[in-house]
């Protein structure tokens, strides 16, 4: 058991070292969300009739945090593919530790860096004038953590199935982007057309964004208990699928 925990810790640390070493990656990953906040948040301030008090910037901030969590986590999951291409994956696969520990180590590492990015975006939003009403910091962190682990697991699952980086573009265009736009990060679901609203119910990020919105500014299109239940369930299921898929990698 000790052996497994050590391995998890080592892999977690690796993710952090890699993340913080590539300064350009850190800054690059924060660029897009920053512009979303700064430009959309102010430019579209009168475009929607919001079902809540507060301005549009306040409405999309939790959505953008959800986006950062998803992008950051998915990317660290997909790094498994790069590890395979550059050979490092083999080194982990023949180590005397279980594959489950490898997945858990990666998931924790990826979640930590994604949460770090999410918190930075929160700070930026704060300086842009967002008025947060955070009930429980612990609940916030737990929720962010679950959302991140869920998406790292999805990333690992996808990476375990893909042979090389060529499919990466497809994943970005046909999975990540739709998940983001459907989630109600940028517009209120309560006033959206029926078809969008139904589709968004199948998007795990919908529950992530609305849960965050509830915790951060006290509004949600979906009851928080539903969000919490759905996200916990998705997290558990996705990590199980990730372990299962990773177990099936032959090399």
């Amino acid at each position, binding site marked *: 058991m000790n052996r497994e925990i050590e391995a998890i*810790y080592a892999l977690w640390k690796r993710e952090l070292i890699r993340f913080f070493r590539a300064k350009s990656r850190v800054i690059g990953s924060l660029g897009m969300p920053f512009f979303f906040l700064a430009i959309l948040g102010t430019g579209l301030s009168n475009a929607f009739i919001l079902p809540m008090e507060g301005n549009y910037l306040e409405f999309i901030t939790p959505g953008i945090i959800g986006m950062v969590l998803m992008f950051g986590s998915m990317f660290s999951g997909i790094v498994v593919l790069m590890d395979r291409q550059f050979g490092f994956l083999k080194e982990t696969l023949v180590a005397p530790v279980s594959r489950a520990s490898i997945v858990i180590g990666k998931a924790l590492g990826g979640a930590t860096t994604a949460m770090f990015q999410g918190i930075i975006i929160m700070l930026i939003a704060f300086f842009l004038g967002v008025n947060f009403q955070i009930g429980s910091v612990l609940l916030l962190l737990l929720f962010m953590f679950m959302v991140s682990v869920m998406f790292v697991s999805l990333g690992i699952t996808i990476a375990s199935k893909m042979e090389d980086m060529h499919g990466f573009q497809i994943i970005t265009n046909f999975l990540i982007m739709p998940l983001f736009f459907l989630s109600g990060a940028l517009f209120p679901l309560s006033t959206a057309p029926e078809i969008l609203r139904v589709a968004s119910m199948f998007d795990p990020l919908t529950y992530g964004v609305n849960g965050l919105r509830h915790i951060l500014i006290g509004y949600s299109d979906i009851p928080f208990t539903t969000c919490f239940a759905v996200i916990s369930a998705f997290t558990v299921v996705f990590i199980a699928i990730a372990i299962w898929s990773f177990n099936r990698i032959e090399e």
Partner: protein
Amino acid sequence: MVLKPIIVYFVMTKAIETRELSKNYKELKAVDKVSLVVEKGTIFGLLGPNGAGKTTLISMLVTMRKPSGGSAKVNGFDVEKEAGNVRKSIGIVFQDQSLDDELTAKENLEMHAAMYSVPKAERGKRIKAMIKLVGLKEQLGKEVKTFSGGMKRRLEIARGLVHHPKILFLDEPTIGLDPQTRASIWDYIKKLNKEKGITIILTTHYMDEADSVCGKIAIVDQGKIIASGSPRQLKNELGGDVVSIECRNSEKCRKQLEKFEWVKEAVKHNGTVNIRVEKGEEKIPKILAIVNKQGIKVESVSLRKPSLDDVFIHYTGRTIREQEASPGAAMRLRIKAWGHKR
């Protein structure tokens, strides 16, 4: 009982034992019923051309791929049933690079030590010792992406040793390196074996290097072991001498000489014909007379004892060099290229 310790001792002298170990990729028999024993403390070389199945064989021994048939024991542990114990007791240097480029040498080693549960108190000491062994002390804090190919290779060897394995697997440890680095890597390997008693299993297709480094070798071709023994043994079994003639029409020359009963074997390679005979010094005049009669112009003649290259030619009918791979081997290589694209 007195017998038991003897039996245990007998069993434990084997670092590796395989029985009809096989691996199929669809219809291709990449490893074909290989039965092999490697005694502890040996430097054991697997020699063979590209696509012979060396890497696949090693992958099964290190629990990376599952055998399609047969069984294998490494350090007394079954590779399928006791994979965890096998993994703990071996070190591996893969054919292809497997370091994390974005970490420093030290971080790579620390990570490995943690994954192999090296006691915390020992890690620093061991990392220092290993890095010194491979001569990378100055580079310890540098990111691996700044390293040359040779430095990366040495770092991988150091990494493979941090957890004090009983067996070290090295798949083509010197491929693509310059001669000087190659020589120094072989020196490390010999030193390791001698000072620490580590069993070493390596693959290579540099015959001369295998000859000078390995205590025992097995020649692998098309998934099968076709000969094994110490390099000296294998060469002695061939016996006699090799007369090499460099000439214009080497194929014609080879054909002429092949006919004679005293010629054990005549093989052409580039512009040279290697003729294996007894008492070479007496045969040179005879050979020259025959060749002259055919009007073939001879550029040079030399006499030597058989090398491992000749052993390889004897068993496979061709040299180990890739460009002369048999049609079968060429197909196997194509399959490989295809397999990697997928």
